[in-house]
């Protein structure tokens, strides 16, 4: 894998007329394979909106999002669904799991959706649960898990189909800082080791500092490109 993302003049306007909200206003940036990028900024500055557009969940109003040279802002329907399940691993702010499934089954759903080999998927699910310290909670229903456990299952789910693009929206919300640091480290290891791309929204500066680069958003625009100490 060696994924390149190039975002140009990206804009998103929610609604129309009087009530129109200009959530993202002309964002441009590009990434290198193996990069782990943190996105910071105040609440309402457009971080989730931008991540959703890159993840194929939201259609941009203007601008292009090139993934390996292909503009995914133009994809629709089945093609878009395919992009989401094959290229993207998305960890939602609200870590939505399917409540009637166990931790492991929530991961296996990804293989079902993708039509992947189930035997390999089971092995991968067990390995991910192990890495994220969830081996003991494997067969617990999503509703029986704690907030932090659900978050980690959501991260494991995002990694199930081995996506090139790992998008994480405030993962540490329900993780204590020690556990949070550990989770982010394993995400970084996944990205570095396989030349993937990681984009993580966070308001925790300690976590942001673990990234190669920090993008700061303010009022729908990027205000500064910071290269973190870690390099």
């Amino acid at each position: 894998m060696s994924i390149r993302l190039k975002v140009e003049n990206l804009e998103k306007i929610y609604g129309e007329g009087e009530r129109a909200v200009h959530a993202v206003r002309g964002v441009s940036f590009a990434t290198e394979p193996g990069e782990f990028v943190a996105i910071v900024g105040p609440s309402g500055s457009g971080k989730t909106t931008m991540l959703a557009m890159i993840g194929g969940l939201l259609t941009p109003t203007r601008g292009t999002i090139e993934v390996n040279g292909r503009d995914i802002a133009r994809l629709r329907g089945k093609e878009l669904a395919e992009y989401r399940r094959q290229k993207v691993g998305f960890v939602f702010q609200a870590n939505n799991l399917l409540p009637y499934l166990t931790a492991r089954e929530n991961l296996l759903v990804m293989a079902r959706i993708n039509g992947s080999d189930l035997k390999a998927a089971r092995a991968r699910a067990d390995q991910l649960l192990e890495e994220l310290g969830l081996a003991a909670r494997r067969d617990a229903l999503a509703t029986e898990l704690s907030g932090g456990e659900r978050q980690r299952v959501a991260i494991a789910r995002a990694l199930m189909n081995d996506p090139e693009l790992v998008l994480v929206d405030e993962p540490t919300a329900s993780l204590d800082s020690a556990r949070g640091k550990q989770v982010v480290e394993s995400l970084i290891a996944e990205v570095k080791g396989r030349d993937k791309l990681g984009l993580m929204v966070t308001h925790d500066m300690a976590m942001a500092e673990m990234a190669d680069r920090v993008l700061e958003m303010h009022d729908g625009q990027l205000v500064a490109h910071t290269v973190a100490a870690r390099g």
Partner: protein
Amino acid sequence: MIGFLEIRRRKLQFALVGLIVTLISYLVLMINGLGVGLNEQAGRALRNFDADAIAYSDRAGLSVIRSELSAETVERIEAESGARESAPLGYMAVNYTRNDGKVKSAAVLGYDPGTIGEPPVTEGRPLTPADADGLLADRQFLRASGLKVGDTVRLAIRLQEREFTIVGELNEGAFFFQPSVYMLRSTWQEMKYGTNAPGTPVASVVLLKGDGLAGKRGAGWEAVSKSTAFANIEGVSGQQSTVQALQVFGYLIGGLVIGVFFYVLTLQKTPQIGVLKAVGATTGFIFRQLLVQALLVALGGVAIAVPLAWLTNEGIKQVPDPVPIAFTTGTFVTTSALLLLMAVLGVLFSGRQVAKVDPIIALGQQQ
């Protein structure tokens, strides 16, 4: 599959709708059984006639009760119709007194031994031309009357009463909503008209065998196919449309219940459908889960309802005057298939709803 796992984890909800589907399937099966049963009562014996067409008096309006044929007309029918084989048949309704003292009616068919009008005997022996007081009785008649081959029975019409010996058993079914008995045509004529004198009607109808007979007519007669004859039995068309209306309602309600349940379920699951879409599931994939669930629920319902209906029928058969319910494998297969089809149609409603869910909602929700 996800759909299957969901059923396992939400047993109560699915069991409840499964129960309703079971009850509806049972109801539809019983209605269908009643439809078949009523039809058998109306005239299984007619459908069993070894004939391609049936000739009536052209003044009878295809009614076996009103049709009366003279010896000349019977000869004309046999000559003019071009039938390969033919057999005059007489019909009348008689009363008899059952062992329990109840007076019941039976359909008498008068035939000539050796013709296509002769029914096959399943027990005992057939009638010979000498058996003026012999009777062949249908199983249903024997069961209802409590009589058996070798017993005697008194049949009455108007002021006449005559004793017959049952010499053989038949499995021809009912005729005109009554159990059927067969006697010699000459005996039938004597009982019905009180005489065998020349000029007395000799038959009610003539059974015909051959090609292209249905629709033929001549002076004083007309011939129709067996199915037309059956449909013209008094009461059959009204009964069939009633049963069909009940069937249609049953299927519609079955489809609607499944449809509404899955629609509500789909609405309830909107957030989860959003998440599935956000992680890359297509509308088709999610809809297939619903389809599998609907089929499983319907299949479960039908799988319980079929033996239940069968058992009910076995129970009903034990009483002396059973409700006319009859099941054929065909009834079970078609009813089950149609109910499954209705489940699929019912779920189609929800397809649009699934398509409408925007994956973006996955971003906003809290668990």
